[in-house]
């Protein structure tokens, strides 16, 4: 069984040798990319030329407008191929990633029982006007996700799922009532950044209400750890998250705190 050690937040920036990369079409370094878009003009020779210039405006060279389709009297749809000259140094690309211990549910339960000595209390909801519960259900409910049971199924967890369209205030009130160790928030609808606004508003409210110790986890198809951190959460979880990862993360954090690790 792995030992809960080391930092769980951002990976450390290690020094790597330079590693320049470009897009790969058919040969290393050719920069080949595909693009599609609509321009609000009628199809025709000038529209096609506009599409070409548009692609050049994005820095593409050897632009090939391979399709020009009338999508409406005043809208034209284009498919374009071109070569980009953008070169990145992959060695410098670094992202904060959540480190989730690779513990089985059984290991998690044993750890909680033996090292924490009390049940872990979590509460989750899909907040705001968002009614997409499938994601939070996958994490919290018995049924789980892709064959991996949800936190409800863990004997040493006490999991509360408030469901959809839950008000930020209502969620916090409930978290206080049950003395939750972790609050899990799911945000699926992202149009015009509604997820960010709502998620940020929740944290502000929590700070105002004096929440200090509670772990705040954010999840959803457009969430990643970096964004969650930016919005003030402890961790973020994106598509494909399995309940096990979440359980592991929470327990690791609680143990670290209890045992005075960072």
């Amino acid at each position, binding site marked *: 069984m792995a030992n809960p050690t080391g930092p769980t937040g951002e990976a450390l920036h290690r020094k790597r040798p330079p590693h320049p990369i470009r897009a790969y079409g058919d040969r290393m370094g050719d920069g080949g990319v595909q693009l599609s878009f*609509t321009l609000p003009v009628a199809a025709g020779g000038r529209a096609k030329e506009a599409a070409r210039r548009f692609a050049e405006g994005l820095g593409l060279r050897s632009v090939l407008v391979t399709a020009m389709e009338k*999508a*409406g009297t*005043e809208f034209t749809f284009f498919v374009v191929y071109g070569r980009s000259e953008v070169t990145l140094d992959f060695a410098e690309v670094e992202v904060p990633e959540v480190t989730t211990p690779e513990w089985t549910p059984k290991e998690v339960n044993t750890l909680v029982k033996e090292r924490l000595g009390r049940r872990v209390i979590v509460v989750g909801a899909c907040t705001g006007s968002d*009614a997409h*519960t499938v994601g939070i*259900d996958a994490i919290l409910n018995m049924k789980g996700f892709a064959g991996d049971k949800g936190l409800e199924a863990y004997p040493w967890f006490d999991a509360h799922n408030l469901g959809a369209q839950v008000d930020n205030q209502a969620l916090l009130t409930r978290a206080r009532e049950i003395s939750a160790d972790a609050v899990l928030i799911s945000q699926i609808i992202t*149009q015009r950044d509604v997820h960010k606004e709502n998620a940020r508003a929740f944290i502000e409210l929590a700070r105002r209400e004096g929440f200090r110790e509670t772990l705040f986890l954010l999840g959803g198809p457009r969430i990643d750890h970096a964004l969650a951190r930016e919005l003030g959460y402890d961790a973020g979880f994106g*598509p494909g998250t399995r309940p096990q990862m979440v359980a592991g993360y929470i327990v690791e954090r609680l143990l670290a705190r209890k045992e005075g690790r960072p």
Partner: protein
Amino acid sequence: MLLPIDDAAVAECRAHAMAIATDVQRFIDRHTTVAIERTVLRAFGVDGADPDGVPLVNACVERHRAAGTLGRGIATFLGRRICRGATDAQEAAEAIAYGDELDDGEGGPSTEEVRRALIEPTRRGIERIDAARRHRDADRARLGVGGAPLKYVIVATGNIYDDADQARAAAQAGADIIAVIRSTAQSLIDYVPIGATTEGYGGTWATQENFRIVRAALDDEQDKVGRYLHQVNYSSGLCMPEIAFLGAVERLDMLLNDAMYGILFRDINPRRTLCDQYFSRRVIARAGITINTGEDNYLTTADAIDAAHTVVASQFVNEAFAHLAGLPDELMGLGHAFEIDKSIEDSFLLEIAQAQLVRQLFPRHPIKWMPATKHKSGDIFWSHRVDGLFDLVGVATGQSIELLGMMTEAIHNPYLMDRFIALKGADYVFRACRHLGEEINWKPNGRVVTRAQTVLAEAQELLGVVRAEGMFPAIARGVFADVKRPETGGRGLAGVVERATTYVNPILDVLEGRTP
């Protein structure tokens, strides 16, 4: 394509479903709701809002609800005001809403007088529905309607003027049906906003003015493209009957209309929305609008293989509800979907079995065939391929209304180009496979036949169980969509009011075929 299906099993499903619906209908017939009463006011021509945007119909109805007198029907009070001298329904309603005193219904005029005073407003209200229907019928006869499956796409910019532009572009690219998706959570608000709107999340507000704007664009465009263009909006939610009425008079062609959707996916109180649904469907039947039901949604929360029979069972119940509300089969766009996990072997066979089963069980119904949504991914190329097989099943099994899949389903509300790509793709598949359905006989006792028979048998069994326990308890224990909704939970229960013995509703009288 025809699957061998046991007629006796089908008949038993229908019998179970009618028993289930009739049981609920007894509840419905004893109750009214704030939304129904607001609809009555709208039918009488009451319109407008106060400076805070609270619609007059809400103010009226709320006042009587709070006073505990709504059980007599808002028509009672409106009629009384008219008898007492209000020049028209609008003035009467304003008096009810903003007047110093609230009529407690005691004393004259007599019910007889009240009823008489409402005859003309009732006639005019119904005539607005009938006129809209005649208008639509004439347009359809003149222009003709596209071939089946009708191509249905959604627009959802949040701004009604962008929606109208995109609706036109979609029509130019081959769409037959344009649905304007509502702003997220509009179904949870207990009034209908007013006017043209340009800000919405994940969709555009459903308002009477917005209906008009899109209809005008389609009226203009359909002459150019030479085929009738349909407009769709959503009535499920707390304002179901009101939106149905607004849709009726604004010539909407289809309405998403399903209490079960509201209960399961919006946590709307079951009693409330089933009452609302009944009244809304009476309006819809009169208007000749096609309903779209939402059984397809069950497969987003429940597994599409395990829960396939719950979709079929629910369709039978929905059909029974619709029959009880006077809707002919020809207006029932029962919903189902291509939602099986795409990584499963032979998923295509299971999808075909389900699609063909539903087609055969509801042969005269304009079945609404929904695309894959949950098992889409951000890989648009893969998703587009999934939609290709979906289109093939749609045309091969002869679905009536096909909501085209979008390759960006897992990403965003469709871009204009996403819609174009979907329409062009569907055109190809529909044409290339035009007579595929006629060519195929399924292997007797093969995978497809067996699957269809299994689903039907499971649906039959489930309907028997639900009939025994009752619809409300079944919903409460999570039979549908794996979602549990108790009879007295959810939003809007306070808006359900028992009808008094003196309940007056001349609009309902006409819709139910009585002389008001």
